C-alpha cells in the first residue's frame, strides 16, 4: 500500500535582508528569496516518514512566483520525488484564506494520505495555514508537532503546548505541521542536487484548479492593511563598559525606572 505525502513549502524573502512593503502595502517580494527554513523541517519529516514506509511518494507543492521554483528544487534535492508549482498572476496579494484554498485544491489534485506543513512562514508567520488546510479538506489537524510518526494508517505526534505536552493521534488522511524542534533538516547531497534536475515539476494555474480569480488575490481577501509605519528606531540607550561598577550602574538605572 503506498503512502502519498504532500509537503507544502513556501518561498520567502531572506529574513536576514531588509524587509518592507510595496506601494500597495503588500509584502515586497523583490528581494532574493529561498525555501523557508521552517519548511525544511517539514520536508525532512516527510522524507523520514517516507523512508519508514514500505512504499511512499513525496510531492512538494508551492504557490508562489516563478522564483519559487528554487524552493521546489531545494526540496527535490533533499529527496522529494516530484513537485507542483502553482503560479498565477491573480494569486498575488492573496490572504491566508485564499492561499489555503489554492493549496487545498492543489493537494486534492495531487492526491494525499498525509499533508505536511511547516509551523509558520518565516515572512507572514501567522502559523494558521495548516489548520485552515485541515478545515478545507475536512480532515484532522495534527499541528505544531515536535515529534511525528506514521504507522498502521495513523499519524501520532507530540505537541508541546502552552500549558501541557500532548500526545496526539489521528487516522489518515490528515494535515500535520512540524516545529523546528522536530529534527535537523538534511543537506542536499551532490547526488541529490544532480538527481533533482531530472525530477518532474508540474505547473498549475487557477484554471487547472477550478478556482475563480475573484476567490483569490486582493479581491478574495477579507482584510485590508490601511497603514504601515516603520517602527521608530529605538533611541540609542546608554551602553557602558563594566569596570567593576556595571552592576551598580544597572541597578541604579532599574531603580530610576521603578523596576526595583
Amino acid at each position, binding site marked *: 500500500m503506498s503512502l502519498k505525502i504532500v509537503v507544502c513549502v513556501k518561498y520567502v524573502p531572506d529574513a536576514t535582508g531588509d524587509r518592507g512593503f510595496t506601494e500597495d502595502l503588500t509584502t515586497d517580494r523583490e528581494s532574493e528569496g529561498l525555501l523557508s527554513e521552517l519548511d525544511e523541517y517539514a520536508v525532512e519529516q516527510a522524507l523520514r516518514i517516507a523512508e519508514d514506509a514500505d512504499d511512499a511518494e513525496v510531492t512538494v507543492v508551492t504557490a508562489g512566483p516563478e522564483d519559487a521554483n528554487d524552493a521546489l528544487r531545494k526540496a527535490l534535492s533533499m529527496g522529494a520525488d516530484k513537485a507542483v508549482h502553482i503560479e498565477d498572476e491573480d494569486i498575488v496579494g492573496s490572504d*491566508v484564506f485564499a492561499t489555503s484554498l489554492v493549496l487545498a485544491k492543489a493537494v486534492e489534485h495531487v492526491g494525499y494520505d498525509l499533508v505536511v506543513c511547516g509551523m509558520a512562514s518565516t515572512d507572514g508567520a501567522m502559523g494558521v495555514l495548516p*489548520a485552515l488546510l485541515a478545515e478545507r479538506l475536512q480532515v484532522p489537524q495534527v499541528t505544531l508537532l515536535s515529534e511525528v510518526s506514521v504507522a498502521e494508517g495513523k499519524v501520532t505526534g507530540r505537541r508541546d503546548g502552552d500549558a501541557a505536552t*500532548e*500526545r*496526539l493521534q489521528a487516522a489518515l488522511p490528515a494535515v500535520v505541521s512540524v516545529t523546528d524542534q522536530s529534527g535537523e533538516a538534511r543537506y542536499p547531497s551532490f547526488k541529490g542536487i544532480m538527481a533533482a534536475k531530472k525530477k518532474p515539476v508540474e505547473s498549475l494555474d487557477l484554471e487547472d484548479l477550478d478556482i475563480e480569480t475573484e476567490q483569490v488575490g486582493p479581491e478574495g481577501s477579507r482584510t485590508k492593511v490601511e497603514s504601515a509605519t516603520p517602527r521608530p528606531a529605538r533611541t540609542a540607550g546608554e551602553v557602558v563598559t563594566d569596570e567593576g561598577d556595571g552592576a551598580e550602574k544597572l541597578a541604579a538605572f532599574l531603580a530610576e525606572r521603578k523596576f526595583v
Partner: protein
Amino acid sequence: MAEVLVLVDHLEGAVRKPTLELLTLARRLGDPVAVHLGPGAESAAATLGEHGATRVLAADAPEFADYLVAPKVDALQAAVEAVSPAVVLVSSSPEGKEIAARLALRTESGLLTDAVDIAAGDEGPVVSQSVFAAAYTTTSRVTQGTPVITVKPNAVTPEPAQAAGTVEELSVSFGPLATGTQVVSRTPRESTGRPELTEAAIVVSGGRGVNGAENFALIEALADSLGGAVGASRAAVDAGWYPHSHQVGQTGKTVSPQLYVAAGISGAIQHRAGMQTSKTIVAINKDSDAPIFELVDYGIVGDLFDVVPALTEQVNTRKG
C-alpha cells in the same frame, strides 16, 4: 449596544491574564460576552464579571479536553450564531490562533492575528500589528463578515469594570471533524512558581553566553530578585540548558514585558522578533559589537558572570 465575544483561556476555571486583557479591549468595541469551554465556568464567572463580562456562555463536554482544537471551533461557532457579535476576540496563543482561523473560515469572516492594539472605528475595529520582526507597525481592518481578532498578551493593562457575568448555558452540537484528533495523553507543565513567560511584566533571558545548564541558576536568581520570568535564546535551548517552553523568539514565545533583560544573548533577528516590543530593554554582553546593544535602553559591556550575580545582590539590597 453591540456585543463582543471573548473566548476565555483558563485552566479548570482559573482565568488566565490575557483573557482579562481581551475583556478590557472588548469594552472599547461593545459589551463583552465571555465564552467559557470546559469545567469551572461558575468559578471563572466572578472574575469575568469583574472585568466587564455581561454574560458568560458556558459549555462543558469531555470533547474539549479529549480532542484537539476542532471541538472548540464548533462551540465558538455556536456562540457566534447565538449572539451575532460585532467582533470575536481570542488570545494569540498557538491554539487560540488555530481556533480563530477555522472560525473565520467557517463564518466567511476576515481574520487578524497577533494584534498589539485595537481601536473602535467607523467601519469596524482598527487593529494594530507589529510585523517583520517588529520593524513595522501596521493598522488593518476586516472587510468581510464578523471580524475575528487574536490579541497578543500584554497589549493592554487589564482594568476591572463590574458587570453581571451571568452564566448561561451554551448548547453545542459537535460536527464530524470534532473528534478527528485525539489527545491520547496530556502532561501538564510543572509550575516553576515564577510568572508565566508571555504574561510576565519582567523577563530575564539567558543565551549562549550562560555557558551551561547549571549556570542558568544565575539567571533564575536575577529573575527572582525582580519577580520576573526566565527566558532563553534558541542557542541555550538547543544546547539543552533550558527547556524549549522558555524560548523567546520567532519559533518560541513572543514577549512584550515592561522590562526585558538579555544576558549573554547576541540579538539575532529571530530572537529580536520575540522581544523587540518590550518597553525597556537591558543587555549584558561582553562583546560591545553585539547587535542587542542597538536595542537597549541600558547596556553593560561586561562578563555576565560578574555583572549578573552582583546585580542580583544590588536588587535584593535595594529591596531591603
